[in-house]
């Protein structure tokens, strides 16, 4: 705690441009773009390590659940909700992957930037403000999820799991699901002093959400009380949205409802981020 911000000497607001700084414009959202370019540069050097978990694992899940378990489901119940089991599970995996990527990006790496690597402290020693860090980070998460989403949508297309033109919007639905997780989690991480809560959140938050949010079966299979609980899980709305887009089924009202919840979470989460980041970095 004593070592929290020993070296930061710059004032809170960006300094007036010096003769040297004038060569590089620092107005508008430019500081945030610098944060973004940091994340992009970092990713460009380390993406290989993430390929396995962000591409290969969802595809393996798709093969195991969609094809393997799908065969059992299709032969007994003749598919789910009028479509084959693969088609039912496939869009859900996209939403789940978005949740996975976003939560992984905003737990350990964000705490590392505060505590172990201290990147954020370096950043705020420049004209970059905490809100720029938030904007840059969340924009980066959105881009990351979008890139994976585009490729994953192509994979789903190859599996023959897409049945509607709206499916081109799947990466966007993934981005929204991702931000609905990334923003609140990053806000939470900024309040943490150590990583102890992360494995707990992962095991009692992420994994149950992954398993019970109507991804592998319609939530009508769940007992009534659990169905009520699931309504509060962002992933449920992300899965429902992705499924609507992929299959072209579902009412407009329900779609707008899911959309509204995800947007609300992303917006409120982003606002919370600016508060908690500022509190920590300007303390």
């Amino acid at each position, binding site marked *: 705690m004593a070592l929290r911000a020993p070296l930061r000497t710059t004032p809170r607001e960006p300094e007036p441009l010096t003769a040297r700084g004038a060569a590089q414009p620092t107005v508008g959202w430019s500081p945030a773009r610098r944060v973004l370019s940091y994340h992009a540069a970092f990713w460009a050097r380390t993406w290989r390590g993430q390929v396995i978990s962000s591409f290969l694992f969802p595809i393996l899940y798709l093969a195991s659940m969609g094809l393997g378990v799908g065969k059992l489901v299709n032969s*007994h119940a003749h598919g*789910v909700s009028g479509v084959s089991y693969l088609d039912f599970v496939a869009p859900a995996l996209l939403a789940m992957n978005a949740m996975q990527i976003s939560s992984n990006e905003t737990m350990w790496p964000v705490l590392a930037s505060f505590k172990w690597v201290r990147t954020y402290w370096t950043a705020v020693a420049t004209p970059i403000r905490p809100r720029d860090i938030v904007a840059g980070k969340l924009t980066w998460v959105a881009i990351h999820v979008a890139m994976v989403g585009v490729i994953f949508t192509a994979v789903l297309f190859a599996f023959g799991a897409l049945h509607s033109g709206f499916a081109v919007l799947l990466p966007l639905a993934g981005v929204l699901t991702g931000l609905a997780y990334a923003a609140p989690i990053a806000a939470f991480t900024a309040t943490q002093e150590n990583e102890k809560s992360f494995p707990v959140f992962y095991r009692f938050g992420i994994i149950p959400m992954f398993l019970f949010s109507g991804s592998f079966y319609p939530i009508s299979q769940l007992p009534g009380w659990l169905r009520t609980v699931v309504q509060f899980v962002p992933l449920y709305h992300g899965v429902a949205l992705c499924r609507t887009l992929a299959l072209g089924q579902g009412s407009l009202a329900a779609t707008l409802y899911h959309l509204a919840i995800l947007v609300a979470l992303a917006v409120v989460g982003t606002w919370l981020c600016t508060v908690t980041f500022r509190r920590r970095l300007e303390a």
Partner: protein
Amino acid sequence: MALAATLRVFPPGALGSRRAIQMLERNVVIYRKGWYFIVSGFFEPLFYLLSLGIGLNHLVGHLHVGSASLTYAAFVAPGMLATSAMNGSMLDATFNTFFRLRVDHTYDSVLATPLSVEDIALGELSWCLTRGSLYSVSFLVCMWALGDTLSPWAVLCLPVAILTSLAFASGGMALCTYLRSWQDFDLVGLALMPMFLFSGTFFPISQFPSWLQLVVRATPLYQGVALARSCNLGQFSWADVGHVGYLLAMSLAGMLMTSRRFRGLLAP
């Protein structure tokens, strides 16, 4: 001649001495503060069982394995048991061993005491096994409570899970000595994830084309899953002897290799 050869392959003390218990004690002391890490590890397979049991039971209907007809939850449960044994011991055998071996240099400090390299290997192995067994016992109780145990033979799932833990713990530790950096753990995940998804855990491997069935039959997790399922159903075949033999051989080979590798890496 035969004795000399035997002694070369299995040198006395290669499997450690009684001092290994000190290593086990060290881990128990360490985890007294982090007990919730251990407790929380138990819930993951339970969540899978609950989720798939509740949700897919009606959609999948009854499965036919041998002469038995069983619900989907009862089909998945032994698979989850073997998987939790694998995950529980692999987690310790790879991540924690790597940390102690390469990052924290715990073992170098331990070697400054009367403990030998083999004691370390055996002690760490017993710890992995203890953790894996705890998960297995508690999972088996849940399985029974949920009505997914189908015969009294299901009790034998416990030794099966422990044997699976042992095989993965010793194999995992041997493997761990070859890892160069944290990035290499992606490769470990790359090996574990397909086994988890395709070893007959979620659907019978009879769905695969025959060449792929052969590949699956050669993987270690399949042995545990198949054995646990036989025990749960109370229907055994000669293949089960093969599964036991496979896991025993893997355990022994892993232990010897771990001892040898540790000696090379740690001994001055």
